[in-house]
């Protein structure tokens, strides 16, 4: 696969991650307002849970590498780790990385399944989602701007508001 093609796919995936996060955040807002989730909300939380599990897998592989006992890891998981790391850096000072990723995956799964989570846990989850959405949208647009299709890609959102 050509480098630009891979960048384009990564950009599309980053924007899809941001999309899932937007849906999840809105669903959590509804939940906090006393309105329950509906069946269309669940896939977004499942995808977010899978994302954090992939990141956990990548982190464990990196940790094993430093101990000289690494197996293999999917390149996709490593890239997701790079994507998520800036978004959860603040939480790293409060808990070991593996615990942070594991808790975020568990929280996503629990909320999606309609289970009650603590307010603190939900706040940490929301904070991570906000930061991750910001990183994902920025990287998504950067990736697509590698090869502008029609004009400067960064102009497009502005054009929509003209």
């Amino acid at each position: 696969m050509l480098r630009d093609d891979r960048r384009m796919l990564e950009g599309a995936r980053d924007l899809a991650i941001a999309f899932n996060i937007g849906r999840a955040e809105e669903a959590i807002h509804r939940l906090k307002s006393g309105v329950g989730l509906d069946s269309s909300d669940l896939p977004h939380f499942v995808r977010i849970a899978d994302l954090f599990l992939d990141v956990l897998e990548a982190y464990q592989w990196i940790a094993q590498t430093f101990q000289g006992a690494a197996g293999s890891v999917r390149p996709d998981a490593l890239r997701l780790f790079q994507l998520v790391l800036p978004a959860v850096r603040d939480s790293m000072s409060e808990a070991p990385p593996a615990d942070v990723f594991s808790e975020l995956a568990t929280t996503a799964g629990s909320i999606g399944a309609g289970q009650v989570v603590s307010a603190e846990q939900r706040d940490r989850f929301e904070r991570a989602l906000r930061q991750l959405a910001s990183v994902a949208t920025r990287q998504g647009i950067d990736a697509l701007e590698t090869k502008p299709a029609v004009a400067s890609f960064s102009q497009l959102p502005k054009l929509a508001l003209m």
Partner: protein
Amino acid sequence: MTFSANADKAIGYIAQRLDVWIDALRTELDEAQSRFELGDDRAAASFLKILRAVLEEHASAFGRYKAASTAPAGDRFRWFGIIGLGLAGLVYHLALLIQKGSRPSVFTGMCTRRSHRSRSVTQGASG
């Protein structure tokens, strides 16, 4: 005017523009799909169907964000922003598909290269 009223006004304005953009993109995708189907370029038409499905996902999410009138303005701005960037991504892929002379991409490489022309997608996107 209070900050809240100003924020509501800005959100209303952005929502209006996103509505226009979604409608324009819907039309643009449908037209492009018809052209590719007429040209018997089924791979390109299939890819456009995928883009169309993604657009409907965005339209559905946008509907929810518009309805979330009690959510903090900052959150609604961010959610609208995600939709806007998602739509920009769709415009990018559509433009790459129909742009004459563009290098075959991982998607368009599956499609027969043709000399289809379309009116500027940025015209459609700008409403």
